[in-house]
């Protein structure tokens, strides 16, 4: 070792032997994107996320007030560090105009669900109707066997409703995925 150290004018010190490696928490992220409505833009976004080994949990897309520009909201469960990387890569896509992870930013989010619940007995019909009122949902279709309920709100609200009607039996369900938007002002109470 002496010859490596040369005349050992250099003193050896205790220094960290290991570099800190960033590791994030795995949780659900909400990513908001403004995109140009060009051929393949959704495929490109999906490929990028799948390429990280992540699944898209929720997705909503729709036109904005500007022609050819769409707003998209994505829900992805993933490591904070990897998601940060994904966001940077999404920004690099030619057809994305704005990309933001709004998970930790004050924002409004809504989702719509259609739930077809078995309501064959009068008791079930009463109970479900009562829940619909409490949750300010709406019944949009009725059959001798079922009610179809439309409910909008936050994920928690919709989940609570689903948990409550599940005992009656859910025949079918469809959810839109979240739409979300950053808040302009300071956070207000969320309904």
């Amino acid at each position, binding site marked *: 070792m002496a010859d490596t150290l*040369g005349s050992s004018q250099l003193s050896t*010190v205790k220094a960290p*032997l290991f570099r*800190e*490696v960033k590791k994030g928490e795995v949780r659900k992220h909400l990513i908001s994107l403004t995109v140009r409505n060009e*051929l393949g833009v959704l495929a490109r976004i999906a490929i990028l996320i799948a390429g990280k080994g992540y699944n898209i949990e929720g997705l909503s897309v729709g036109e904005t007030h500007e022609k050819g520009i769409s707003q998209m909201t994505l829900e992805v469960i993933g490591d904070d560090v990897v998601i*940060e990387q994904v966001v*940077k*890569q999404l920004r690099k896509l*030619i057809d994305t105009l704005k990309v933001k992870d709004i998970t930790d930013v004050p924002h409004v989010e809504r989702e719509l669900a259609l739930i077809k619940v078995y309501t064959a007995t009068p008791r079930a019909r009463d109970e479900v109707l009562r829940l619909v009122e409490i949750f300010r949902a709406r019944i949009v279709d009725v059959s001798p066997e079922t009610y179809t309920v439309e409910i909008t709100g936050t994920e928690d609200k919709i989940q609570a409703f689903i948990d409550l009607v599940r005992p009656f039996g859910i025949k079918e369900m469809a959810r839109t995925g979240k739409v979300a938007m950053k808040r302009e002002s300071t956070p207000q109470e969320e309904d």
Partner: protein
Amino acid sequence: MPRKGADIVIEALKEEGVEIVFGIPGGAIMEVYDALYRDGGIKHILARHEQGAGHMAEGYAKATGKVGVAIATSGPGATNLVTAIADAYMDSVPVVFITGQVPTHLIGNDAFQEVDIIGITRPITKHNFLVKRIEDLPLIIRQAFYIAKTGRPGPVLIDIPKDITQKLSDVKIPSLEEVKESLPGYKPHLEGNLQQIKKAIRLMVEAKRPVLYLGGGAVQAEAQKELIELAELMKIPVTTTNMGKGSFPEDHPLALHMLGMHGTYYANMAVYNCDLLIAVGARFDDRVTGKIEEFAPQAKIIHIDIDPASISKNIVVDVPIVGDVKIVLRRLLEELRREAVKILYPEERQKWIEQIEKWKKRYPLTYSRSDKVIKPQYVIEQIYQATKGEAIITTGVGQHQMWAAMFYKYSFPRQFINSGGLGTMGFGLPAGIGAKIGRPKREVFVIDGDGSFMMTMQEIITAVQYKVPVKVAIINNSYLGMVRQWQELFYDRRYAEVDLSVQPDFVKLAEACGAVGFRAEKPSDVREIIEEALRIQDKPVIMDFHVDKEENVFPMVPAGKSYREMILHDGKKPIEAETMYLVG
């Protein structure tokens, strides 16, 4: 004036200054070939396989800095391009790929020679376009070139259905301004934040043991002058990646040569022990870092890169600077001069340089010489001497690639052209042809492996047809050598399927193709053949060097291991943990 879509393609290519394209025609792209023929203003090189055309376009782009263009027909023509597209994507090479597609009304019908090349290449292109209306054609072509060459460069594919090339339109070729306006979501960041630059300067001033680490981005930016100035002004030793070679002259006293898996002892020691690492246009690839937790474990890191997504991808960075490498370095140097900054610890810096000198003396890049068998490293050294270090070198992938990286000393950007990211065997010959066509005054040597050469060797005929005098030096070890080396070191010498002893007679093969062939079987033949080859300037030459079959590439840091586990050239002796010490 109304003209066919195919003519619009040619018009737009000329507007981009394209002089040469590489490709192979076929049904869906015939209109474009007809337009090329009628126009006569763009030279076309007929490759013998579309992969070859793709690598030629890459070699041309890598050697010149211009955008390369490769053309193929639909279906199999397009799929044959895929390896070259992925290669260009991994190494950020600006190439525009143009493919024919079945007519619009047949798309999605599994028509003859239909393939969804847009879907296939989505993850391996910077961007791709399917042309749906003839009116969009000129804008799309100009967008493709603009996207390919700006920011972090990369491949762009344009898929043109046959009916679009046949329709008539009087659409104008848009101006560059219009092109930029049409891409509101694409704004490459060039300037570099001044605050960040100042922070970087602070770290450079305070550092005791700094190292510059240059990657492919430093080559692309052609910032050699700025890098030399920075290194000399601040007395910072410089290591380059495989892709970064040529960004800093390797005969410079501050040059540490390559780092990483097959890096030099002194480069890896310097990186392991440094307290400041300045990464320029590099991306902390796993072949460079080894075990990331032990990569430059006590260093602060400055990272200058044009691609914001490269920063803090593999490693946490202290001072990120997003911007064009050349522009950022210029501003940094201006600041340095304006503030007339002085290094804070000149003595320690001097000692650091001296320490590195000792490492260089202790384990220089070397190999065991022989006068009986041809050592592969010897061949590279001889090529280096015979070409006075001024040739452009392209390579295949394997041991020969690493020897070409180690034993030829590179001094200018775009001099060393190889497949760094994808590691594509068969890259060398077609890339060499493209490079020679782009830089006809330079000697171009393809340092190839026998295995790699056999993957695209049909392109020798292309070189004969167009009188492209590339010199192919096959480092012939009758093995898939790099795989054999791993089997020797990590699989108890179980040589599974790496024997290439059944192979063509490369000299006869050269002759059969209309090229010239030479063979060297003993060390004394080597230089003679190279000199002989250098005299031939009207056709390609194949030199078949029969080298020591089981020579290995050292030093080597086994994959995923720390630099502390580097194996030196005698192959047996891993460095003792204690010798990788940390200085303070």
